[in-house]
């Protein structure tokens, strides 16, 4: 037999020697995961500062914010943000947060690091594609940020970039020329990075599980990453051509999204025949699965962390996984709920509304299973579990406001108001972030061999929990009052009585933002000075706790773990205590 497989194509590789191979162009999924995390950190700090600028401007429109004038003389003369620059900041805030934070960290960051370990593999299936996926994403980030420094500045069409505003070019407003093209290019590159990443996740989960690791023995976090990557594969594959078509409308004179007879600044536009709504259909076909891509890993991570800290498995492993699958499947059928009032046939509104309401069922099941599993558990309180519990609270709050928006008749009133902004910030801007915090506090010891400071973690939690509720709950009230979103200033008569609410929100946002410095300090300090972490500080059962902290280059030291147990054997009587690890041959009787 001619064995051609002496060197597998990229799956097994020798330990890196050079600095560049170890830390920069690394093939190691752990390094790549950390790189994604760090990029996400950079993006979230940038996005958060942008949100501060927005909120300060909304509360005190005439205040000259120091430093902004340096960023853009035209956009913020004397630090006073112009209406167009406000929208540019808002666009970049949304784009950075949704793409470079919410898609990067819970999925590409933690997933890259822990998926191979949790299934007992020594790396991802295609390490070279993995490295390419990170660096593509990084270049995408650079291209996006470069929009700040071109003439006209960043685009002002929002992260949703609706046509024709986003397609006709600079005539529609500052930033709509070069800025919009850079935006579309950056997002296109991001899509490619994500597609390569999803390819890796799916193939690794299906093919590289170690002996005994059946699909149902994978931890919930692994399932969440796997399901997310299936969504990522299909959703980003649709956004990519959409961005290409948008760029062509800009640079090639095509009219995919630009209809005829548009008159801007008294000039008849040289485009004709395009379909405005086509962009919305393509974008939201991607956009709705995207928001589930943002939350599903968090659901997986939070489940994983809660189970470890409750010392018992969830009431049903299969139901959670099935619900995650159902949510992901349904997510493709609901995208039209972003377009109820867009001029689509009104009958389609009902067609999209129905699955939007139905998707509540698996989401409710997950929440009920979480809460039901808390009953009778032996809950341990620490920073990670606090953020996981906070996630449940936030997910409920954000999900319930979805009830209103899912109904087209109510959407007539609430569409494009702060109610919508409150809804998606609760689920994406808080719950998903809580998932990231929980994951950080939980897995930091494994990743860096050191413990984070628990006191600082708890302070961070309290300030953030109360702070984010103070920021985003009032958004819903503003929405009920009809406060329109994406306004750079509140000049309407009916908005005047709401200005004090906006001031309150701004102050809460600045305070909560400041509280994140505690987390940042904790993160950096603990990297170098944190107490040495044991191999299994949380007494967890999954495979990441069977390897040293941090794990060696090939995760399992050349050995291949054999899995004997389901992932969450807690509440048992074993030689290790009330739990037995997945790779332990010890047979135990489950208790409860």
């Amino acid at each position, binding site marked *: *037999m*001619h064995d*051609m*497989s*002496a*060197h*597998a*194509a990229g*799956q*097994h590789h020798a330990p890196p020697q050079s600095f560049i191979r170890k830390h920069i162009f690394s093939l190691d999924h752990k390094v790549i995961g950390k790189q994604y995390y760090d990029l996400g950190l950079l993006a979230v700090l940038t996005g958060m500062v942008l949100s501060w600028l927005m909120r300060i401007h909304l509360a005190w429109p005439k205040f000259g914010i120091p430093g902004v004038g340096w960023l853009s003389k035209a956009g913020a003369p004397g630090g006073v943000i112009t209406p167009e620059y406000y929208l540019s900041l808002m666009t970049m805030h949304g784009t950075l947060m949704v793409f470079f934070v919410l898609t990067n960290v819970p999925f590409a960051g933690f997933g890259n690091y822990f998926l191979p370990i949790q*299934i*007992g*593999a*020594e790396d991802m*299936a*295609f390490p070279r594609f993995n490295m390419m996926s990170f660096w593509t994403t990084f270049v995408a980030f650079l291209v996006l940020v470069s929009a700040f420094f071109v003439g006209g500045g960043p685009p002002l069409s929002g992260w949703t970039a609706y046509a024709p505003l986003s397609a006709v070019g600079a005539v529609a407003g500052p930033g709509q020329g070069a800025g919009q093209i850079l935006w579309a290019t950056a997002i296109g590159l991001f899509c490619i990075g994500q*597609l390569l990443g*999803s*390819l890796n996740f*799916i*193939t*690794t989960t*299906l*093919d*590289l*599980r170690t*002996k*005994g*690791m*059946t699909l149902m023995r994978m931890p919930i976090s692994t399932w969440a990453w796997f399901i997310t990557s299936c969504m990522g*594969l*299909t959703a980003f*594959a*649709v956004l*990519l*051509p*959409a961005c290409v*078509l948008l760029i*062509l409308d800009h640079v*090639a*004179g*095509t*009219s*995919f999204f630009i*209809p*005829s007879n548009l008159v801007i600044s008294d000039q008849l536009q040289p485009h*004709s*025949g*395009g*379909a405005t709504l*086509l962009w919305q*259909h*393509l974008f939201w*076909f991607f956009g709705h699965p995207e928001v589930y891509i943002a939350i599903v890993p968090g659901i997986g991570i939070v489940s994983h962390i809660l189970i470890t800290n409750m010392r018992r498995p969830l009431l049903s492993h299969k139901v959670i996984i099935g619900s995650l699958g159902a949510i992901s499947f349904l997510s493709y059928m609901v995208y039209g709920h972003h377009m109820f009032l867009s001029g689509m046939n009104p009958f389609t509104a009902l067609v999209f509304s129905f699955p939007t309401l139905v998707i509540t069922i698996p989401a409710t099941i997950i929440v009920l299973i979480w809460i039901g599993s808390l009953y009778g558990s032996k809950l341990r309180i620490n920073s990670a579990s606090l953020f996981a519990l906070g996630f449940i609270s936030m997910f409920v709050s954000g999900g319930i406001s979805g009830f209103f928006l899912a109904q087209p008749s109510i959407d007539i009133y609430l569409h494009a108001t702060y109610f919508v902004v409150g809804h998606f910030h609760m689920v994406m801007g808080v719950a998903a972030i809580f998932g990231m915090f929980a994951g950080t506090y939980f897995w930091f010891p494994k990743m860096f061999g050191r413990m984070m400071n628990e006191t600082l973690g708890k302070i961070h939690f309290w300030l953030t929990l109360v702070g984010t509720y103070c920021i985003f709950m009032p958004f819903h009230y503003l929405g009920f009052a009809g406060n329109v979103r994406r306004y750079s200033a509140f000049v309407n008569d009916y908005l005047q009585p709401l200005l004090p609410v906006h001031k309150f929100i701004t102050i809460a946002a600045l305070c909560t933002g400041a509280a994140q410095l505690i987390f940042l300090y904790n993160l950096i300090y603990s990297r170098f000075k944190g107490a040495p972490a044991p191999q299994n500080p949380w007494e967890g059962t999954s495979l990441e706790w069977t390897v040293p902290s941090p794990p060696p280059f090939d995760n399992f030291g*050349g050995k*291949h773990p054999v*899995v*004997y147990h389901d992932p969450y054997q807690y509440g048992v009587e074993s030689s290790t205590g009330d739990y037995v690890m997945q790779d332990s*041959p010890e*047979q135990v009787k489950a208790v409860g």
Partner: protein
Amino acid sequence: MAATVHEPPKPETPEAPPRLGHSGGGWRDLVPTNENLHAVEDHSPEPASTGIWVGLAAITMSFAALTSALIVRQGGSTDWRHFTLPRILYFNTLVLLASSSTLELSRRRAASFISGVGSGLAKPVRWLYATLSLGLLFLAGQYMAWLQLKAEGLYLATNPSSSFFYILTAAHALHVMGGLGGLIYVIRRLSRSVLRQSTLDAASYYWHFMDILWLYLLWLLWMRL
């Protein structure tokens, strides 16, 4: 797909280390607790075999998006101007189909060599070169089709119909170029006898998919343009 059979470990000697680059794959059987890792058949596919289908799924979604863009754009306005497809496209189609045949010839011969039958790698490599040449010929032919359209005054922005012609053929050509890169990779490794069957299979499936995708696009363009 290669089936590997692990020899049961002899009690005195330690278990033979697993083959380099294969972390056990993921046999789904429940492991018995008497720790006797007896003979297990590993049915897990090589990553390349799974990966290629995942990648093809993504490519399908992208072209599905472009298809719906075409349909919506055509149905939404009255400015769609039909034109006749350049005839060279049909010749190019035959060239591409031929390249798939040569690729299959190569793949099957390489497969028999790898599994111990077959006479050598010279023939499979030659057929791969033939595939490569036909692929390049296809791309040249597509470029000629573009030149023909330009000669008729049909550019990218002339009309939505021509826009979609260029975009769909360009997107396909880009993916074909990727496939050519894959073929070159496979040729180089095959020439040095360090190629896995699954990699060759994956590259082949990708190339055949380019065929099928082209047939679909040709039909779509013929129907709609």
